[in-house]
């Protein structure tokens, strides 16, 4: 029964080796899709290159459907999976700030690591900046602790809030993704395609 680690199939130390292997795969696929290149990422926000949207939503759909089907077949104990806790206002504000940083800096933390190891100098500057930002956040933490904990809702999933089964939410997510893919394709043709 998966998740294997939670059922004690291997120790925490072995889990770190699993982390390394998963990380290698993660980095490999990020680089293959061109996520080490800041301009390619940023052109998403001008509707010129939809790679970010396609890759991200395809990945979410594959993992989401995988988790749902595996738990349906009884292979995966979904209650043991870590669900990110929701602090709705903190995450909304944090997301807005991060989005601004994304458009200006051209990377997000994971992709900047890939950018840095493939020789993108701007990624190195971005990493330095990100660590500075995190340092500033840590320094400011005592005064913004209330903001950080604003809107706590527990480990809730969309299906809990909307009061429907997770299958329905998953179906809605698939439909949403298809609509967004089509819309983005239309926009890409309208704003001038520039796929790198």
């Amino acid at each position, binding site marked *: 029964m*998966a998740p*294997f680690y939670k059922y004690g199939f291997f120790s925490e130390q072995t889990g770190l080796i*699993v*982390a*390394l*292997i*998963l*990380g290698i795969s*993660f*980095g490999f*696929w990020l*680089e*293959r*899709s061109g996520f080490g290149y*800041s*301009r390619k990422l*940023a*052109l998403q926000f*001008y509707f*010129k290159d939809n790679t970010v949207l396609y890759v*991200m939503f*395809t990945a979410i759909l*594959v*993992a*989401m459907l*995988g988790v749902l089907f595996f738990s349906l077949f009884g292979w*995966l104990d979904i209650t043991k*999976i*870590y669900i*990110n806790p929701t602090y709705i206002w*903190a*995450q909304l504000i944090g997301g807005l700030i*991060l*989005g601004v*940083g*994304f*458009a*200006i*800096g*051209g*990377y*997000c933390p*994971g992709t900047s*690591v890939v*950018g840095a*190891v*493939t*020789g993108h*100098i*701007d990624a190195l500057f*971005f990493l330095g900046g990100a*660590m500075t*930002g*995190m340092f*500033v956040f840590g320094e400011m933490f005592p005064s913004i602790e209330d903001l950080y904990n604003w809107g706590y809702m527990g480990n*809730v*999933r969309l299906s809990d*809030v909307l009061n429907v089964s997770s299958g329905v939410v*998953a179906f809605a997510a698939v439909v949403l993704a298809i609509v967004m893919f089509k819309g983005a394709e239309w926009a890409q043709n309208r704003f001038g395609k*520039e796929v790198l």
Partner: protein
Amino acid sequence: MKEKPFWSPYAGGIGLGITLLLAFVFMGRGLGASGAMMRFTTWVVDVFAHDHVMANPYFAKYAEHPFSNWLVFEIIGVMIGGFLSGMLAGRNKWRTGRGPNITKHKRWLLAFIGGAIMGFGARLSRGCTSGLALTGGATLAVGGWVFMFAVFGAAFATAYFVRKQWI
């Protein structure tokens, strides 16, 4: 060697999705990136000012030795995987990603500023695009989806003001 083209975004998405799925199956948790960077930042601060780190509740939480953490090992893996992939495609070269209308140095400055903004935002929302949007999105966590639309919304809104940088 000539640079090879990037693979189809759908192939990349499926590859990433399977990786994420395997993370759930093996570890019961998703992938991430900014947590490892926070650990590294704390470690650097810790080297210079240990008492200061211990006095701050946020730093103290991350003050373990960096090599003990799951995400740190994952990020080391990301570095290896990214490097190998870039090497196989002949893409490992020193360069700066930028649009045709901006100088290298301005781009570096903006990358640093953008990084600082993002670092701050990532800590406020407890995750970044990998740790919260991708992982939370796949587990249908409410925070993950709210965060994802906030990121895209803000990025599209800001894009107009920095268009000289990219197009």
